[in-house]
């Protein structure tokens, strides 16, 4: 085990995979000479040269599509899209092409492609630079979408994504790059499609991913200390496929759930999880499933407005209390019957 930042884990993994496999190459805006907007690719141009670390023109559709085409011929490109907001410029190539090519042609061509891109708001970046729109990709069969929350998962999921023969959208988060954690030395890939129960408990299940997995864990710690609550936390890690069995198993045990997401509530990832719980654990629920999500506005620049729109630790604590109150009322009612 080595303690390192999420950024370092990504950097080291990219480098190790490039050393391991000549077919791995990096493409993206400002990833070479500038060393990446968030410095994930620092030093890699100097080490591997222009052939394998390609600064692209500002042309998301063009270079993402080119990476897909190169993948069809057996290369394993890792594309960096500076933020997930800009991925919308490549939406046609990702959704209509990367996700379709394997199936649409009857399995004749694989697309072993990774698209790394960070989400994350709350840094006064304004409406266009603060979106969490991974849902757009998680909606699409043919894509895989992973969202590591820790340096260890960043490593093991990036290894899995690069070695996978399908297009993988690899969601990072601006707020996580400097977070630290233990990272194993070995290069065992994570299993895509599996969530992690990061804390076991019996009172209620908190479900989150990426940065919100940390918020969920923080709330669990805080309420354990303040209220003696025994909270289970699920870090989804994979948004497509979604690990429904792990969610259901947990809710069957705790009988209550709060979903924590920093995308918009309506039609969001949380809506899918809530529907999953309704389908798989309806009879086990003692309270309605709550979602804590962003206010449904284009995120404003001004700090007080921005803060008001984003889900906070206190919002989650309130939702947990209200849900457990509802559980208590139900138990009282059942007791009187």
């Amino acid at each position, binding site marked *: 085990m080595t303690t390192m930042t999420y950024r370092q884990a990504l950097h080291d993994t990219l480098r190790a995979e490039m050393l391991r496999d000549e077919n791995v190459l990096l493409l993206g805006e400002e990833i070479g000479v500038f060393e990446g907007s968030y410095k994930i690719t620092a030093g890699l141009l100097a080490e591997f040269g222009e052939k394998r670390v390609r600064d692209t023109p500002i042309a998301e559709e063009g*270079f993402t599509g080119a990476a897909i085409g190169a993948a069809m011929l057996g*290369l394993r490109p890792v594309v960096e899209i500076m933020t997930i907001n800009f991925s919308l410029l490549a939406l046609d190539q990702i959704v209509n*092409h990367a996700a379709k090519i394997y199936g649409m042609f*009857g399995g004749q061509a694989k697309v072993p492609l990774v698209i790394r891109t960070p989400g994350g708001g709350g840094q006064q970046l304004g409406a266009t630079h603060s979106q969490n729109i991974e849902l757009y990709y998680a909606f699409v069969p043919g894509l895989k979408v992973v969202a590591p929350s820790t340096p260890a998962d960043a490593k093991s999921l990036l290894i899995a994504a690069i070695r996978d023969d399908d297009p993988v959208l690899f969601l990072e988060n601006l707020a996580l790059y400097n977070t630290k954690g233990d990272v194993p030395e070995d290069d065992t890939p994570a299993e895509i499609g599996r969530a992690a129960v990061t804390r076991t408990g019996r009172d209620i299940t908190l479900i989150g991913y990426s940065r919100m997995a940390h918020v969920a864990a923080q709330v669990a710690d805080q309420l354990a200390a303040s209220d003696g609550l025994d909270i289970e936390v699920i870090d989804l890690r994979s948004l497509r496929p979604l690990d429904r069995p792990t969610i259901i198993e947990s809710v069957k045990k705790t009988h209550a759930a709060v979903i924590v997401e920093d995308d918009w509530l309506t039609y969001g990832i949380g809506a899918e999880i809530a529907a999953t719980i309704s389908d798989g654990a309806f009879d086990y629920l003692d309270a309605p499933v709550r979602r804590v999500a962003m206010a449904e506005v284009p995120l404003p620049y001004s700090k007080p407005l921005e803060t008001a729109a984003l889900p906070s630790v206190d919002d989650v604590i309130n939702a947990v209390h209200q849900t457990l109150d509802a559980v208590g009322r139900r138990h009282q009612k059942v007791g009187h019957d």
Partner: protein
Amino acid sequence: MTNQVNAPRKAAGRSAAAKSVKSATAAPAKRAPRAKVTKRTPTEVAALTEIYRQMLLIRRFEERAARSYTQALIGGYCHLNLGEEAAVVGLLSALAPTDYLFTNYREHGYAINRGIDPNRVMAELYGRIDGVSKGWGGSMHMFDISHRLLGGYGIVGGQIPLATGAALAIDYRGGSEVVMCTMGDGTTNIGAFHESLNIAALWNLPIVYVIINNRLGMGTTVEKSSAEPELFRRGEAYRIESARVDGLDPLAVAEASAKAVTVARAGRPYLLEVVSERLRGHSVVDPAKYRTEAEIVQLREHDPVVTFGAKLVRERVIDADTMAAIEHEVTARIDEAAAFAEASPTPDVATLFDYTYATPVANDSRRLPGQPLFDPAPLPDPGEDQ
């Protein structure tokens, strides 16, 4: 740089296009004088006859596809290469078997001419298991890895970045193959076209971009959609060598294509505009009411299969008996393709989830529309936790 900057600016009709062909290609078009008969070697005769045979094969295939479509044997959209036969045969004649081809959704003729068994192309149209894409693609999505046809693509312009990436992969590995990427005239207004040309020129990629200019989007003319209607000139913005050629003459197209492929094989992208015709509507169901009577008359005169066949007879390359024999052979071949397609089974619905992912993945959904997400759960023990 050999962009043909001296070509006339007007490009409204075929005559203007033909004029610019002359100024756009340094060498005069390969055309035998009308009255005189050139003595040809048996090899030349065989080659010319084969070109005609290939053009006719595409023609009859597409006519049969149209018929099968109206008989509801083919579903979805169905865009035909009628009028594009000379362009298809000329373009692909320059490719080696190891080169790669990307096309748009009007690609049946390209598939056949690439050497794919017409039976399998027709079976794909019929949605059958023996289709080139196993019935998963249909008319717009023909793919055959063994013939290096890397797709028919239904989204206008979608194939251009992909083809550019394929060229990148070739260059990355130091290979000698080239990529040819065809598109329609309307496609040159899409961002993906410009982004791809820019990337190909920056990285010196071995790719030939081909614009099939039939002068209509669906019904919108080039002049109404492209501020520079001489589409090959768009290469100039990216310092990509480019030319325009008469797409009704298979020999002129072959020559232009050979030059383009040579440039690409030497590591520079090339942009070739092929001025073509679309003899019918945008797709089988389009009655093309936007065509004027005069245009329709002109279209018949511009039929490349008829024109080339007549030229070969006139120049005594082939005689009427040979023409009839080719017609007979081609028709029989298409009959066989249609019979094969009809006899081929439809894919087993049990394979519905086989092609979502190449690498199997945990928790992949294999739920049919009417099925619940979970099997009905046993009710919780009423005593538990209460």
